[in-house]
């Protein structure tokens, strides 16, 4: 089974196209990364919260991308939004990883009792639609992005756990775990070094990438829809920037709506492509 994957009659993709996908994905992530770096080092061209330009001003040397309807510099807001999203996004990854690893390891290696308990926990989390759970937390936490992203991370724990479980199953099938145990390798080492790092690394990373894509999607969707659930004005978010500018289509001011929309799309695309590339890498090595 494992051997037959590599020599499949239908090779998944050619080498070049896989690396092309990864490269495009990484390029897609560049604008957002630039924003995070710029905001972190204080290199934003203007204060994203100050009304400094003229309302709906077009691109100029002062304001590279123009201003929004309230006269705030669009580029600064765009980058500040990326920076504002980063810590909660990272928190989502941490939550997903820790919950997923604990439950996944307990499920597949924890023996009968703990296995059943953690399997039940994971199924419970998986049975609730992710977005609705996030809505609940958003409603309770009064649109505090930290809590919202923690919830997003928690809803992704089953995916991480599934990656670990399938790794353990494969290694079990190859009698790898038993062999290691019989050689006297400690369980902690097997779990962290061989299973998590040696075997499941790519899949877990890929899942984290799709988690980031989803987290961004959730944040922007909530902020766009409003209802005091997502990021609130004046704090910038790509979602509420579009919401603010959405009537611009009728007045001809397309830029303030289209630029955040492009940013959202390419960043999500970037995360998905990198995740896909990682999965394909793994499929080949398996």
């Amino acid at each position: 089974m494992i051997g037959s994957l590599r020599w499949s009659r239908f090779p998944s993709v050619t080498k070049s196209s896989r690396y092309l996908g990864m490269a495009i994905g990484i390029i897609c992530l560049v604008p957002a990364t630039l924003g995070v770096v710029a905001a972190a080092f204080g290199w934003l061209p203007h204060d994203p919260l100050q009304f400094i330009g003229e309302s709906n001003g077009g691109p100029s040397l002062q304001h590279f991308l123009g201003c929004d309807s309230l006269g705030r510099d669009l580029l600064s807001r765009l980058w500040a939004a990326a920076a504002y999203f980063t810590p909660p996004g990272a928190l989502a990854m941490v939550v997903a990883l820790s919950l997923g690893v604990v439950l996944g390891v307990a499920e597949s290696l924890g023996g009968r009792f703990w296995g059943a308990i953690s399997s039940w926990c994971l199924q419970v989390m998986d049975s609730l639609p992710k977005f609705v759970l996030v809505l609940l937390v958003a409603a309770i936490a009064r649109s505090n992005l930290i809590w919202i992203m923690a919830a997003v991370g928690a809803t992704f724990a089953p995916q991480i756990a599934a990656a670990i479980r399938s790794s353990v199953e494969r290694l079990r099938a190859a009698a790898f775990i038993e062999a290691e145990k019989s050689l006297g390798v400690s369980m902690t080492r097997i779990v962290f070094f061989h299973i998590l790092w040696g075997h499941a690394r790519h899949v877990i990373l890929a899942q984290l990438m799709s988690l980031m894509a989803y987290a961004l999607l959730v944040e922007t969707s909530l902020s766009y829809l409003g209802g005091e659930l997502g990021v609130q004005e004046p704090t910038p978010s790509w979602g509420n920037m579009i919401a603010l500018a959405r009537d611009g289509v009728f007045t001809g001011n397309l830029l303030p709506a289209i630029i955040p929309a492009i940013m959202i799309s390419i960043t999500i695309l970037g995360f998905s492509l990198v995740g896909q590339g990682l999965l394909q890498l793994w499929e080949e090595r398996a």
Partner: protein
Amino acid sequence: MSDMALKVEGLTIYLEGRTGMRRVVNKVQMTVPMGHIYALLGESGSGKTCIVQTILGLHPGVPGVVSGTAEVLGLNVLEKLPKYVELDESSTPTAIRKDMHGWNRTIRDVWAPMMGSKVTLIPQDATTALSPFHTVGCLLQKAISNSGKQLGREELRKEALNWLRRMEMYDVESVSNRYVHELSGGMAQRVAIALALASEPRIVIADEPTTGLDATLRIQLIALMASMVKNRKATLFLVTHDMDAARILANEVAVLYAGSVVESGPVEKILDPTYKPKHPYTWFLLESERRLLQGAEMFKGSRSISPPDEGCPYIIHCPRAIERCGAERPTLTPEGDEHQIACWVEGDYR
């Protein structure tokens, strides 16, 4: 129809590995007359399965690049090959595959009328190679009806059970209701043998049919297979690394080393223990067997290694290699009637 069941000439196969194209089979030449039992001997990894599956269009991997001809029952199954594959043999294995999927489809179309009825295959590993979605009984009934017999439902069922009994199985009712993954390896292998024989083929291609079986059953089943094939005047192409089986059953044998046939001819000339082998590799095989039987000290290490691109594939291990062996690849040259050998140095080896 020609009297040749199988005629392979200059068959070369490149497979795509992770590091690029690799030559797995190199200019193989074989002729199997109708009604004969032909054994292809070789250690594992020498490309036996690859030859068989490529000729049948069944290779589970991308069949890579193939050149040469293969005639099965007079039909050249590789006829359309040049349309799809372009081989540049001038230097290192580089090749252009024009349309691999088209090639896959074409070879399957060529095979469709013969597959499962005139020609059948006993796969190497029956547990993974048989359909997991059908019960054993269902598979057997399909095989029996592939032979073209018109039988009623009940007769078909009875006949299927009979086939299981012939394969030395007990509790045939329960076995015929099971799926392949519910059988042991030996049982699955016997089912595979029954499947291949039940459709009364002209050619049975058996890819190490008895590897997973224990010794008593092995001899029994090989004998059974041989008698069935002989009774029907069918041809058996036996791929094996079991020299005893080849010696007992086969009329002719070809010895494969690293994808090249190094010696071929009548079995009594090549595998006779008293025969003075002409090719060093054949000598090595026979000598290993002799030492094993006599309890003498065995050879150290393994002989299998990926062969050099040019020259004799056996050069790395060959004790009598001369300069020419490294530069030119020896071709099969006649050595008495029907006996062929690929070696630059003439004369008996030891």
